[in-house]
């Protein structure tokens, strides 16, 4: 049953946003949440809202060069994004950190912009999810 729902779920919208997701991670998450669209979308919505605020703090820390604040927020977003299979966000975060630690704040800001786009894509995916799953 779970497999069937997953296939429907996957076919419907996951593939159109494939670059966002680590499919294996997503599958395992999907199984733990027993295919509950409500809980899964709540999980991603929570991540999205928290991360949008944190990116503002990240931007300030890049501009001021405060690596302590940057490190704490990086740790937070990275831990969550990698655990919910958000591959694009996880890899972009790592690239942003590499640039900042190589004293390349412009590069870090560039990756921050990519992160914002990835979040918009996630938001778009969530809206489609909600639309499709409405009875």
């Amino acid at each position, binding site marked *: 049953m779970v497999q069937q729902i997953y296939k429907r779920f996957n076919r419907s919208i996951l593939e159109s946003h494939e670059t966002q997701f680590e499919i294996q991670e997503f599958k*395992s998450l999907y199984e733990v949440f027993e295919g509950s669209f409500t*809980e899964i979308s709540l999980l991603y919505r929570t991540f999205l809202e928290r991360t949008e605020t944190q990116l503002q703090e990240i931007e300030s820390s890049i501009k001021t060069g405060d690596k302590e604040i940057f490190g704490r927020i990086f740790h937070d977003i990275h831990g969550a994004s990698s655990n919910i299979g958000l591959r694009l966000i996880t890899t972009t975060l790592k690239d942003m950190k590499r640039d900042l630690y190589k004293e390349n704040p412009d590069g870090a800001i560039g990756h921050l912009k990519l992160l914002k786009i990835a979040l918009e894509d996630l938001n778009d995916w969530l809206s489609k999810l909600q639309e499709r799953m409405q009875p």
Partner: protein
Amino acid sequence: MKSKKKRIQPVILVFDDNPVITMIVKKALSTLACEIHIAHDLKIARELLESNPPDLILLDVVMPKINGFDFAREARKTLGEHEVSIVFVTNKVSLNDLEFAYDIGAIDYIRKPFDLAELKIRVESALRLIDVKKDMREKEWLSGMQATIGSVVHNFNQPLTAAIFSAQMLERKVKSQEELKVYVDDIHRALKKLKELIAKLEHMDDFTTTEYPQHEDILDLD
């Protein structure tokens, strides 16, 4: 002697400032027979330590206001004699961090991102370990109780037997007032001894035992 104490469910405190992580952890552990409490900030975590003393804490390391290592030490202090096991769940994984975590008494260290099935297996294993420790403590307690009860029986038996014997003698053999006084004095002594033993038991906060051949260890009341 068998314990009739009802085994209560272990309590797990998950302390991570990121709600995404706690949502996943809670869901992944939802099929385990345990009580799960979630804290996203220090204030709630401290309140939960007091109101629902945990047997196991799943703890992030990097958090605002307090880091996981400091919280682990604080939790042990707050919980006092209530034994708590700590498992760190974090992506802070330097060798020094690992060493430090085990130095302050962690029993496991789970790296983020964690596999949900693996997380469940490791928590189950931690809960089994806690259960074994509880069993051992219970056996120690039962053994202490056995010694106490053995001692009470042993110590109370002597003056009681003496009192009963004297009462029987009174009933059967007393012919004069002098003889009566001897037996009544014996009964008084025996009853006084019983009273002293009861007073000692009431105020006992530490005990030592003496090993008697062919017997369980017997508590020293003298």
